């Protein structure tokens, strides 16, 4: 049996009368996740909304070239990630971007972190996440920031729970090593 998202994809690609409704359903299901993913990169509500609109346009235009080699969410995550980085680069060139709200807070008790601002640490964390392979980055973002269950992440990414747990563990180790190295210098 076809999953609902495959049916949506086919309806959108066929461009018939159901295309608009299918696209809405797809957007309601994945839009909030993509929005938070984008927001964590651009850290500005208005820009995050602009990026999301561009992402929706790219999804609408390119869905026919989606080859199902990865899960639909992974494919859309990639588009959103690239679009957010592109927008961030062009907007940063124009002006200093205001940060609407911080992404992390520091819990006191760690010597290396206590003297720093949350934003400084987040920039290092962002750098560490962006250096990860795509699948590890997706798992880390969904688990660490959004506290999603492995079962949900497995459905989104089309990966087994065991593999996801291993990926998350490796991602955390890499990020910890990265942060320690940066904070000790």
């Amino acid at each position, binding site marked *: 049996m076809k999953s609902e998202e495959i049916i949506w994809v086919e309806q959108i690609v066929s461009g018939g009368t159901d295309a608009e409704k299918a696209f809405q359903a797809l*957007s309601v299901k994945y*839009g*909030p996740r993509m929005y938070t993913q984008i927001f964590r990169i651009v850290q500005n509500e208005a820009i995050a909304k602009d990026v999301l609109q561009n992402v929706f*346009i790219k999804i609408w235009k390119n869905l026919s070239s989606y080859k199902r080699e990865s899960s639909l969410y992974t494919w859309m995550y990639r588009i959103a990630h690239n679009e957010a980085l592109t927008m961030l680069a062009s907007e940063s060139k124009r002006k200093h971007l205001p940060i609407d709200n911080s*992404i992390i807070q520091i819990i*006191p008790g*760690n010597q290396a972190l206590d003297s720093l601002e949350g934003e400084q640490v987040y920039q290092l964390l962002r750098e560490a996440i962006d250096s990860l392979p795509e699948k590890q980055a997706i798992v880390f973002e969904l688990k660490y920031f959004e506290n999603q269950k492995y079962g949900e992440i497995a459905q989104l990414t089309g990966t087994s729970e065991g593999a996801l747990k291993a990926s998350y563990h490796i991602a955390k180790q890499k990020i910890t090593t990265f942060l320690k190295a940066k904070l000790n210098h």
Partner: protein
Amino acid sequence: MKKEKDILDHLQPEKIRTPSESYFKTLAKKVSIEERHSAFENRRFIKITGFALAAAAVLFMAFVLFNDFSKPTKELKVEKDLFYDVNDEEIYAYVDEHIDDFTIDELSIPLSDETMEEDFYFTDISQDEIISYIEAENIDLDELEDELLIF
């Protein structure tokens, strides 16, 4: 034994407020309508461009098929127009003064049969005068005979 806290355990992710469900629905609707319209416009543009190219091709073919390429080009007209305000006497005087600058080809081309009949018989000059002029100027008679056939 108490597990030592990881550096990430000292960081608390903040909750990010997401827009309402209706925002995503509206955005999806807006994108789908705009993109459909844009796709329609693109198809129309391609159609119009196709027709325009086909029409241009037909016009070009008609030009190639029906144009008389044996007619003198505009360039000649321009050349002629350049001397519109110079009268014949001035041209003859210039050519006479600078006769050595011209080749026999250049001098012979403008001499059509009509011109030859009207102006080139030297009716007011005697044959002796012509011969003494040719001798004085060291003109090669054989060459003149070949080129102009005036004798």
